[in-house]
């Protein structure tokens, strides 16, 4: 077993998250996909932390989590308030800002 496998795994997870963002319309699911991507990144950071033998990667991952928490709070609040006004949580419905 090679630690680099973690990297491949996180690459896969990241890509899956990306695709999720692209194909899902429900804002909440999109948001979850983003969380998935963040996790993938965190996994990378932790793996590299291990490879390099320093804890900085873990610290970084920790910060990412905190930021993700903040982001989730704000993001969900936004989704809610959009839902309140537009009766919809579909990202496709929020398309007024266009040509």
């Amino acid at each position, binding site marked *: 077993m090679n630690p680099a496998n973690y990297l491949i795994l996180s690459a896969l997870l990241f890509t899956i998250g990306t695709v999720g*963002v*692209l194909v899902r319309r429900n804002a909440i699911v999109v948001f979850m996909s983003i969380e998935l991507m963040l996790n993938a990144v965190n996994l990378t950071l932790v793996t590299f932390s291990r490879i390099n033998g320093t804890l900085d990667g873990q610290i970084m991952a920790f910060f990412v989590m905190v930021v993700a928490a903040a982001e989730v709070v704000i993001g969900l609040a936004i989704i809610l308030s959009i839902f309140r006004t537009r009766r919809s949580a579909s*990202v496709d419905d*929020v398309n007024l*800002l*266009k040509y």
Partner: protein
Amino acid sequence: MRVDPVLLAATEPGGQPIHYAAASGVFSLSWLVIVLPVAGAAVLLLGGRRTDRVGHIIGTLAAAASFVLGLVLFATLLGRDGDDRALSQHLYSWIPVNGFGVDVGLLVDQLSIVFVLLITGVGTLIHIYSIGYMAHDPNRRKFFAYMNLFLASMLLLVLGNNFLSLYAGWELVGLSSFLLIKFWEDRPAAATAANKAFYMNRVGDVGLALAIMFMFATVGSTSYADVFGAAAAGVIGYGTLTAIALLLLLGACGKSGQFPLQAWLPDAMEGPTPISALIHAATMVTAGVYLIVRAGPIFDGTQAARTVVVIIGAATILIGCVIGCAYDDIKKVLAYSTVSQIGYMFLAVGLGPAGYALGIMHLVAHGFFKAGLFLGAGSVIHGMDDDQDLRHYGGLWRYMPITWVTFGLGYLAIIGFPGLSGFFTKDRIIETAFDKGGTSGYLLGSIALLGAGITAFYMTRLFLMTFHGKPRWSSEGPAAKHPHESPVSMTGPMVVLAVGSVFAGGLFVLGHSLQDWLEPVAGTGVEGVHTFSPVVLTLLTLVVTAGGFAGAYLRYQMRPVESVARPDTEVSLVTFAARHDLFANTFNETVAMRPGQYLTRFLVWLDLVGIDGLVRGSAAAIGGLSGRMRRLQTGFVRSYALSMLGGAVLVVGALLLVRAG
């Protein structure tokens, strides 16, 4: 005022240096001759309506003061030696740019002083005349201001000691002429005529300007001394010399109303009559003659240019005469008479040094009698309530005797009645033309002779139709006319001019006085072999003149004159052509004006649709393109995310490729 102590020297053909002595004494005041009228004009123009009441007096005084100063200068010059009569005064440095150092300087010599006297003298008289003539015009002050401006410009023209000063004066007289022709500017005809005059003058000015550029490019200077020195020393190539001469001639033609630029002069008669007398008869239009005489050293070096001068002179004589016979407008007849008389002068000066003095002589004499004639015409027009049509006159001698007498004397002078000015001056020109020898001599002489005959014809026609015969106007009815003699301020100058036109020619010819006076400038004509003896030629001229007179007398005195001209359809082809200025205007319109208008319209279209269309087209293309492109901005976050991912793939791929490669 700094007086340039350095002598401007040049070599003349004989190899002796000519000195333009530095002006000193009274001559250091010669700038005042110009500045006085400038000051008059400035006071009148800037003073505005405050100077309305005294405007005419100020203007006249300025002119008169200038004249007096001119007389003083003349008298002083008389007291000097013959070779020492050219005085140059450096005033200040005008356009100093490295090699191109043009100064404002004056040259008082025999030639310019003659012109100074003519300009200020006749000018003063006409100022006085205008006091009466323009008495009822609300803008009389402006009129006098413009007249002063004209005097100053004309004096600058003749007094400058380099070609650029001359050019400045040249264009400024054009301006004054423009201002005065359009003086009654609410008349569209006047405005149009003024513009036409300015345009055609400008065409001539281009020639003059180019000539000056040639001089600078060839000689490195524009001052008379340098240019003439170089011309006389033969260092200017023949081709260049000819080019300069022809360009000068173009300028002269424009200013003097010579063929092919003669069409503006008759139209210029839209201006007030005193203007016609001063500018368009006596002074400005003769500037071309002055130019050619002044530039004598240049023309001396190029026979070709001189031939062109002669041809133009001869052609213009005939053109002026023929058209003069056809018009019924008193001022237009006089205008065409002016054209043809200046043709005589051109003919004379084109004949070389032998003719320079004759040309000047005729010019001065013509200045007197033609100014007198115009003033007389003005008096008649004034008396006939601004009616200018000869066919509405008749039998006026009874009502305006002074005008009749003075006009008559001018008339006799112009047709060359023995003993009067024209007789002496014009006959000499005809004589010299014949003396040129060869076929060309005969041809030119014959043309001049023929011109004299036709002149006699149309002037007699004019005189008879105006003052004699039965009145073709009525003193009753709606169009009642009350012809009356003009006030003293008008008749006074007429009398003076009449006296001048009687005696001037004789004075000049007696003992070759003017010729001798001008000799240092104009050179001496080689006394060639006479083709005919002078006596024979004089008699011949008299016979031809008498023939012209008789023809007119028979036609216009013995037979009644219709008060309405026959319509164009019933007159002969020649008359028709003459009435239409020998189609000069038609020609100008067809060749220059119409194509110009079409070109202008085409260019306006081209600018709008072509050039600006290109600009706006590209703007519209970009606008349209962005209109399409913005459709890409769908508003769907997921689309944007997809494109971001695509971008990321591209960037990462490219990076990896670069690393791998």
